[in-house]
């Protein structure tokens, strides 16, 4: 055997799990992002009492694939006066940043590409924020007023809300005491509580800031259709546009994963420390089997043969997955033990991520878009002070626990009262400020359009 081959084999033997995870992420994320779009459209339709996409596949289940094919064969237009290189580069940056930051996310006890990176959560937050360059450069390179206004809005928004998100992360990190993704989850296992319950204000702050960071409604000012056509994406078409879209949805998955890891207990099942609740472990397989049964019931009612075959396929997939979940635990012997843990961990992790994204969508369909000054005021006058006070109060409560022997929940209550008191003060001050600002504004000029005058 040649030495090169030998070296390659050793390399593969050492790194095969990481390589497998990386390939899985890169392969699966575009598909998942496409289906998140479908879920979003379906949910929106449901909340507006419509049916949503129904034509392609049963209940529109093949819609994402049709969309992808359409975007691939669409004409790729580059504006005459655009900066060609930057125009070409920008969507790639957006997508790459989102995919790279996924490398440090622990989807399960072992499902993580960069496992020994000690600054995991900073890596995810920092690298995913580089996606902003894609938006800014794309907006600039298009050489279009709408695009550049979208890019400038996006920059201002991200710089403002990144601070709030960072401070919210600091609150969570104070509790975990580590930046490593897996150690954060372990800390929540040891503390016997998700950090959501220990520092709810930080979770709330992160929720709002992460919606703003992913440029989603009610914070979607960079691409506000009614004002800016499509903001920074105005000049993009075909697959470049799809790359932006994929980047945005991958970014959603990234922020949801960060929130899940830090505040929602990562891959841990609910009540991981309680022994008599171990039957919760049966939930994944039951859940999948239930979906499978539903598909079988619906299969007979499909209008076309292809559709019912498709439904049977989905049902079989669900049954297979459910069976593997059910059999993995009792059948697993030593080398497969970690596979089982990974399977269950990934299920719970993805379920929580799904819940978080559902919250995103729900907010999108519920709230109207902010005005830009409202957005700035919310970020700088309310969220950042709130997060800052939360960090300080949490630090004080941690000292109270360790030095003065306070009960944990008492200390948490103290933090909450401090933070909420400050929040109320801020809101009142902000209201008064807004009132004063509106009083000093010059009265709006009333212009009467009189076409017949003179």
């Amino acid at each position, binding site marked *: 055997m040649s030495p090169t081959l030998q070296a390659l084999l050793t390399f593969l033997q050492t790194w095969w799990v990481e390589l497998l995870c990386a390939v899985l992420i890169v392969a699966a994320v575009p598909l998942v992002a496409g289906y998140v779009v479908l879920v979003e459209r379906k949910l929106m339709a449901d909340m507006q009492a419509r049916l949503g996409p129904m034509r392609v596949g049963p209940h529109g289940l093949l819609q994402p694939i049709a969309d992808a094919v359409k975007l691939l064969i669409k004409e790729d237009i580059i504006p005459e006066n655009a900066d060609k290189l930057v125009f070409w580069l920008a969507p790639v940056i957006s997508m790459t940043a989102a995919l790279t930051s996924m490398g440090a996310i622990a989807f399960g006890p072992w499902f993580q590409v960069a496992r*020994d990176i000690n600054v995991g959560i900073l890596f995810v937050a*920092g690298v995913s924020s580089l996606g902003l*360059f894609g938006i*800014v450069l794309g907006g600039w390179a298009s050489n279009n007023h709408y695009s550049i206004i979208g890019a*400038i809005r996006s*920059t*201002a928004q991200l710089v403002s809300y990144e601070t709030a998100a960072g401070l919210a992360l600091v609150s969570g990190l104070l509790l975990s005491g580590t*930046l490593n993704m897996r150690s954060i989850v372990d800390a929540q296992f040891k503390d016997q509580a998700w950090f959501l319950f220990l520092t709810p204000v930080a979770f709330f702050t992160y929720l709002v800031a992460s919606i703003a960071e992913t440029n989603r409604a009610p914070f979607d000012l960079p691409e506000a259709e009614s004002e800016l056509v499509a903001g920074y994406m105005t000049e993009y078409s075909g697959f470049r546009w799809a790359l932006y879209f994929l980047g945005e949805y991958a970014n959603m998955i990234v922020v949801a994963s960060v929130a899940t890891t830090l505040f929602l207990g990562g891959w841990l099942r609910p009540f991981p420390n309680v022994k008599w609740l171990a039957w919760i472990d049966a939930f994944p397989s039951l859940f999948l089997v239930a979906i499978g049964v539903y598909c079988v019931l619906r299969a007979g009612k499909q209008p076309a043969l292809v559709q019912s075959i498709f439904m049977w396929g989905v049902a079989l997939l669900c049954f297979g997955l459910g069976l593997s979940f059910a059999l993995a635990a009792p059948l697993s012997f030593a080398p497969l033990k970690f596979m089982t843990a990974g399977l269950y961990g990934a299920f719970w992790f993805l379920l929580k991520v799904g819940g978080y994204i559902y919250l995103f969508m729900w907010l999108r369909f519920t709230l109207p878009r902010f005005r830009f000054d409202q957005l700035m005021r919310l970020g700088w006058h309310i969220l950042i002070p709130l997060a800052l006070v939360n960090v300080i109060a949490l630090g004080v409560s941690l000292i109270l626990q360790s030095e003065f022997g306070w009960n944990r929940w008492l200390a948490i209550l103290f933090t909450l009262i401090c933070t909420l008191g400050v929040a109320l003060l801020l809101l009142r001050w902000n209201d008064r400020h807004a009132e004063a600002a509106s009083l000093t504004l010059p009265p709006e000029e009333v212009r009467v359009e009189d076409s017949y005058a003179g």
Partner: protein
Amino acid sequence: MLDSVIFYFFAGVAILSAGLMVTRRNAIHSAIFLITTLLATAGIFLQLHAEFLFIAQIILYVGGIMVLFIFVIMLVRLDVLVSRIQFRLQKWVAVFVALAVTLEAGVVVVLARRMPGQGLLIRATAGTERLEPNTEKLATGLFTGYLLPFEIASVLLLVAMVGAVVLAKKRNDA
């Protein structure tokens, strides 16, 4: 072997894009190459197992400062400014500073050769096995050994921030 390949890759990218950054006419292109330089430097930090420096470089310089740079470049018309006298003078100042820095670097290199065991000493590379958490070590250093400089730096930054706010604030009474 792999270590030096990674190092030379990042170093090459850093130097190449630094050169391109200085020579580009378009300010946005310069900014993009500056970003590449900073990212490549971050890569070198990572290769040296300085994880915290790596991510601090990315978050602060690339994700923070460069975003503001680009923001300003997009808002300001640079072609108007270039013709101003104060900016034309800048070229000569820059040449002078560059020469001074080159001279200083040369002196350091020469002196380091002359004094054995001092100056540019290349230590044995860190092992690839797990090291002590980098962030914790940095934090311990900052908050024990270097507490006073750290606090002074923080106060300076705060003063700069307050100064910027005062300068930027619109005066209604004027």
